[in-house]
């Protein structure tokens, strides 16, 4: 009996990989529609902050993630952009991660069309810039000293979307979605220094680390990981990749719990045999 049970701990790990793959793949092929009933306080705060902005307000959206964190952060970005367009906000998109540029193009090829938004009038995409901290600092005095042209080289100063925008004081909100520490910089170099409200979106790994900023309201809200994306999608009432990923995440978490419980129970039995 003891030897039989001990075999469980010598099981080939590849069986677990296979079960995990099946558990994650099945909901993609056949969505189970498991409910996502909990909306975290931080995601709701992020939503409420964007929702409270007046139509025409300028939202600076810093999208700083590359394909390595796309499954978590891309749905967040899409949900925030949909929300901003629904609210008729003006959007300026910046990035400090070169790998983001393709993902930004991917979003803006489709999403603006759903809301009849026009490039240059309702939104503008700025080119990638290196050295985020320097750019953030310099933008405080003269936005156009850094971004005088959009990503295709057209001058932005006279674009309708940029009317009345000279520096951070003219912006209603900064939203930074990132898989890096750039969100810390937005808080330190912009939010705290120039009193600009900052809302964040980050990977689930980084999420616990932003608790202190949320407690002190240095961050007005935070969307964390794929779960946060699903929460924001349900608040905007635009289900997307975040919502569809919840099925798979729920099942995978159940599998992990089952494995932890099983191995602990077996270990207890072995000890008492």
């Amino acid at each position: 009996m003891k030897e039989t049970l001990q075999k469980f701990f010598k099981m080939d790990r590849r069986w677990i990989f296979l079960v995990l793959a099946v558990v994650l793949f099945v909901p993609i092929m056949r969505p189970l529609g498991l409910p996502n009933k909990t909306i975290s306080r931080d995601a709701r705060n992020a939503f409420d902050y964007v929702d409270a902005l007046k139509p025409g307000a300028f939202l600076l959206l810093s999208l700083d993630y590359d394909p390595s964190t796309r499954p978590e952060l891309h749905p967040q970005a899409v949900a925030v952009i949909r929300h901003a367009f629904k609210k008729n906000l003006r959007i300026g998109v910046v990035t400090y991660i070169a790998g983001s540029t393709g993902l930004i193009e991917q979003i803006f090829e489709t999403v603006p069309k759903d809301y009849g938004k026009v490039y240059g009038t309702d939104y503008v995409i700025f080119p990638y810039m290196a050295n985020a901290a320097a750019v953030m600092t310099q933008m405080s005095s003269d936005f156009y000293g850094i971004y005088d042209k959009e990503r295709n080289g057209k001058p932005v100063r006279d674009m309708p979307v940029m009317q009345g925008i000279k520096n951070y004081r003219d912006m209603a909100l900064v939203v930074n979605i990132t898989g890096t520490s750039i969100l810390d910089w937005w808080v330190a170099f912009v939010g705290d220094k120039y009193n600009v409200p900052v809302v964040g979106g980050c990977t689930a790994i980084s999420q616990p680390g932003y608790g202190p900023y949320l407690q002190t309201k240095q961050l007005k809200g935070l969307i964390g990981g794929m779960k946060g994306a699903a929460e924001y999608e349900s608040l905007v009432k635009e289900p997307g990749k975040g919502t569809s990923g919840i099925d798979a995440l729920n099942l995978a978490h159940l599998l992990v719990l089952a494995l932890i419980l099983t191995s602990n129970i077996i270990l207890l039995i072995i000890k008492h045999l």
Partner: protein
Amino acid sequence: MSETWMIAGGWMAAGLTIFLFSFLYRDNPFFKAAEHLYLGAGMGWWFQVYLFNIWKPKVWEPLLSGDFFVLIPAVLGLSLVTQFIPRISWISRYGFTFMMGYGAGLAIPATLSTDFMSQIAGAIQPFTALATMTPMMIFNSLVVAGGTICVLFYFFFSVEHKGAVKKISNIGIYFLMIYFGAAFGNTVMARFSLLYGRFDDLYTFSGANYFYASQILLIALVAYFILHSFLGGKKTEEEEPAH
């Protein structure tokens, strides 16, 4: 992008994903090829980013338009390269000096204000408004302030940890463990999200519009493993199974 390129991209993405995941079963030439391709493509990608997104707009174009001030940061930046030539590597100190001074000047005041002063204020401030707070809010504030003090005690090494100090620092350990637990749980969730993302793409590329790229490549790889084992392919030291 033309449809042909989209399909080719789909096959490439599906193939590389499956090849890289194949390592979970066993090391194999397809995994090696994908790994090397990833490194090479990564290097190429960064080279073009530096060339076209930094060097061209920040150095070359200003120089062409007569702005010679950009030569100062450009030369400071180039001085770092002298690290590779021991005889003149001392020149790199000028570049590093500038970077250190600039970095410290930018980071220290901001960090002191954002991560130090604001956090201390954030832990104390709720106690100035106790009359307006609900019992739960007061409890939360006490937990935050108490947790902060206990964890700080744990990291205070100038006093021997015994008696009351030991008890407080032990409570600090529990707060740290809760944080690590939350962080680890979130890490697991994040990894599953990434895996889900790859599987979602594989499912997309398994459609008829991509000529069933995922299925064909997966079957081909399984066939390789079966053939390899039937033909008696010897396990080399590098080709150990993943367990």
